[in-house]
């Protein structure tokens, strides 16, 4: 398995788990404390985002250390073609999400609901990118 495919698997799993836990916690907290402070909210978001940052950096470092010195070619035209396809598809998913968040939600929702909808759009676009990347390496 190529490092880029491996990273796509790890990143996809991390996004699903971290954002899944974050949004599950947001829902659960709504019943416990319907009006949390700004610090509570931003703290939870900071924990989720910094966890993702640590996972991304650690995975990149691990994959770089694991690279064998015998394989000189680390990235080629197929990698770039797969990345281009994945990024293009994810871009349209992100555009749809951001159009919804930016053009519709300000008239019906406020504050943190808009922030969470934007976060969900970004997370879904990233997951789509990972899925297309993995599929690209598996199916050609």
């Amino acid at each position: 398995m190529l490092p880029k495919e491996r990273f796509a698997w790890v990143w996809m799993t991390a996004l699903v788990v971290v954002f899944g836990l974050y949004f599950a916690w947001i829902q659960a907290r709504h019943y416990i404390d319907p009006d949390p402070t700004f610090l509570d909210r931003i703290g939870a978001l900071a924990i989720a985002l910094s966890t993702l940052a640590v996972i991304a950096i650690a995975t990149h470092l691990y994959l770089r250390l694991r690279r064998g010195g015998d394989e000189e070619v680390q990235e080629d035209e197929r990698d770039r073609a797969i990345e281009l396809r994945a990024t293009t598809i994810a871009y349209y998913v992100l555009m749809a999400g951001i159009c919804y968040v930016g053009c519709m939600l300000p008239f019906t929702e406020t504050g943190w609901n808009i922030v969470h909808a934007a976060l969900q759009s970004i997370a879904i676009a990233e997951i789509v990118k990972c899925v297309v990347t993995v599929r690209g390496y598996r199916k050609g």
Partner: protein
Amino acid sequence: MPGKRLANDIRALRFAAGEMTQAELGKRVGLTRQTIAAIEAGKYSPTLECAFRIADVFEKTLDAVFKWEDTDHFPDR
């Protein structure tokens, strides 16, 4: 284009060239071993430039390495 696919004889040419490995061919043309495997399996069509580089390694013309064939020859794909 429906009904046609890009086939190749890279595997046979590698063995004819002293059992050259996929990694070795990859190094010589600037591709990863996995990409060479994908090209051989017909899962990935290389760019024209890369196809010429592969043909160059085996000192063959492009049409001696790559063929535009009917998919009827590959019913599983």
